[in-house]
């Protein structure tokens, strides 16, 4: 029984983390048709910014609860700054260009930003564990669980609800949907596509940074952490369907639960399980589980 509890909770925690990381990636792809490799850099900068903010905050002996606010503030600030610079300086110039060119540009930006990160923060790892350790733990069925981890599951659930509400119930969401379906038609109807792109990229960047910022209290923040994440995020997005938020959620859940099951039951297959699921899904649905049917353009 304890193993079942462990698989479910571990799967949910891992899925929550994956979803927070992947949702920004899939949002940018869905709206802008950009496979943004630089998303890994948003994640890494978010983690470093949060680690720095947490360090500054807790060094002053301020209350623990404010530390979580420091994480969010750091992520939003760095996400907005990076997103704005990248979109204005680089991506705006290549909208409408071949997707391969855009991917190469984001890949180049990712590599450059990895070095920028080292220039700013150095090569030494950074620790910012207080928000994780101070949150404490509780026990379910004999299994100790971290409050921070379960909080992450709650946050991911709220994020999914907020994303769904925004897309379906708000004016901006409807504009977004119009651009997703057909950019040119949306523009013909007076939608300011350029503005939609800018806002989308900024939101995606903030979500990527938030993923890193929320992970920072759990890990030793070191250069190179964005590389690991971007590969996993791509796997999740590919399973769910490129550009689909529901797909990102379901993809994250599938990967999270399969991985947790593998760790507990057949640990040798941990890594294999993630990519085996991806391969299996893509064999039967190459467009992913939730990808929309594409209108044929003549």
């Amino acid at each position, binding site marked *: 029984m304890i193993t079942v509890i462990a698989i479910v909770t571990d799967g949910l925690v891992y899925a929550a983390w994956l979803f927070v990381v992947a949702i920004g990636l899939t949002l940018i792809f869905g709206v802008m048709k950009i496979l943004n490799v630089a998303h890994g850099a948003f994640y890494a900068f978010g983690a470093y910014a949060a680690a720095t903010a947490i360090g500054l905050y807790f060094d002053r002996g301020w209350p623990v609860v404010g530390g979580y606010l420091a994480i969010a503030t750091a992520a939003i600030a760095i996400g907005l700054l990076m997103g704005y610079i990248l979109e204005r300086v680089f991506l705006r110039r290549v909208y409408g260009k071949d997707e391969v060119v855009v991917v190469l540009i984001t890949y180049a930006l990712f590599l450059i930003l990895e070095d920028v990160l080292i220039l700013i923060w150095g090569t030494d790892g950074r620790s910012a564990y207080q928000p994780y350790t101070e949150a404490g733990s509780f026990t379910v069925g004999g299994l100790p669980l*971290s409050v921070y981890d379960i909080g992450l599951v709650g946050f991911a659930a709220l994020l999914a609800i907020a994303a769904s509400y925004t897309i379906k119930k708000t004016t901006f969401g409807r504009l977004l949907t119009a651009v997703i379906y057909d950019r040119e038609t949306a523009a013909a109807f007076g939608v300011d596509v350029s503005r939609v792109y800018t806002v989308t990229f900024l939101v995606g960047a903030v979500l990527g940074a938030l993923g890193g910022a929320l992970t920072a209290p759990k890990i030793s923040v070191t250069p190179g952490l964005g590389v690991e994440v971007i590969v996993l995020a791509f796997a999740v997005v590919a399973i769910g369907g490129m550009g689909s938020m529901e797909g990102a959620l379901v993809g994250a859940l599938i990967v999270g639960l399969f991985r947790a099951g593998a760790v507990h039951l057949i640990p040798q297959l941990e890594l294999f399980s993630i990519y085996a699921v991806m391969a299996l899904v893509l064999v039967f649905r190459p467009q992913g589980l939730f990808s929309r049917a594409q209108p044929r353009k003549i």
Partner: protein
Amino acid sequence: MQGMTASAWWVRKVSVAALLAAMPAVAGAQTAPAVPPVKLGLVTFLTGPAAGPFGIPGRNSAEIMIEMLNAGKVPAPYATAGLAGATIVPKFVDEAGSSANQVTEFRNLVQRDGMNAVVGYISSGNCLAVAPVAEELKALTVFWDCGTPRIFEERPLKYVFRATPHATMDNVAAARYVLKKFPDLASFSGINQNYAWGQDSWRDFVAAMKALAPKATVDKELLPKLFAGEFGAEISALLTTNSKVVHSSFWDGDLESFIVQSGARGLPARSTMVYTAGETAMFRLGAKIPDGTIIGARGPHGVMAPDTPLNRWFRQVYEDRFATAPTYPAYHMAQSILGLKAAWEKAAAAKGGQQPAIDDVVKAFEGIEFEGPSAKIRMAIGNGHQGIADIAYGSFRFNKAEGKPEIVDIVRYPAECVNPPANMTSTAWLEAGMPGAKCN
């Protein structure tokens, strides 16, 4: 000579003659064959997750050792300048990237940059990839930190040396220390990174436990990928066992992340953790490491090092320069460079003080014994290419009164107690029950 007196003419002639006579001496002094510098390639992680805890301490150690050796300021027996009088000119290369990339960089160092020797590599995967290329290029190569025992066990190597003992020593000593603490241990688990270092470490620990405590069984055997960072599921899996001991050869950010995540979920309250490379994290994490955690330093390094003049000097110059204590990677780098110097100067002495050829250094390096900052190294196994040394293990304690971490209950194991003999591979020795081990 118009307008010049006879005496003035003679003065001038004598002066010119004297000048001409002196010229060969001056010219000779200017062109006397200077000792050419020794170009030394140094490969270590300068970026990436392994840079902070491993690569940078190694680089820092190399920086001060080379500077001090060139200035002749290292205490005896290394007080002579450079390598037999030749100035060491270092070139640092980042170890980050794939093994294939490291092979390319190694070729560049040897073939393009003309390095006389290379001291390099933290990752066992990189050592395994570079070793055959070093042989192909006949390039003197000293591995300074990678731990896999397979380097010299899978094939004989001529140009490759490793002055730091391999992982078998770490894990045999860990098993001995664990059984000293828990003589009736019924079961244990392990979490190690899924590549050469992690797999070899776990294999050796299990084999040593089987030899020393045949009734102890393995509960969980976890091998997450390198640099995974997130270990929630693995910690749950370990929490569902009854293991009194959990073995881990984690290093870098994975080590620190695992310590924090497992601590927050109470794993150390159920199982005593054994970190064979834990010393690198003790100053960075301090009180985050639970008291009683068993800590290794891949040798008698750092706070477990003996108080010798060479060690005191090394710690002092390192702390003065970098404002932090040297951890074991710094020791590994220092002893690798000192091993190279010992071999170089032995070869030079055999040639009457002349600079030796690389093949002379290779010959001198085989089977050499030399003093490291923390232990005597004997190149006793791997056909004289692999060093062995004593090792120490201890238990972590955070000294709240002084606000600093410390290691207590330190036990030292002689080299022959924890290393295979020259005529056996690690695996064969462990499977045979460690015959010939001398622990007293």
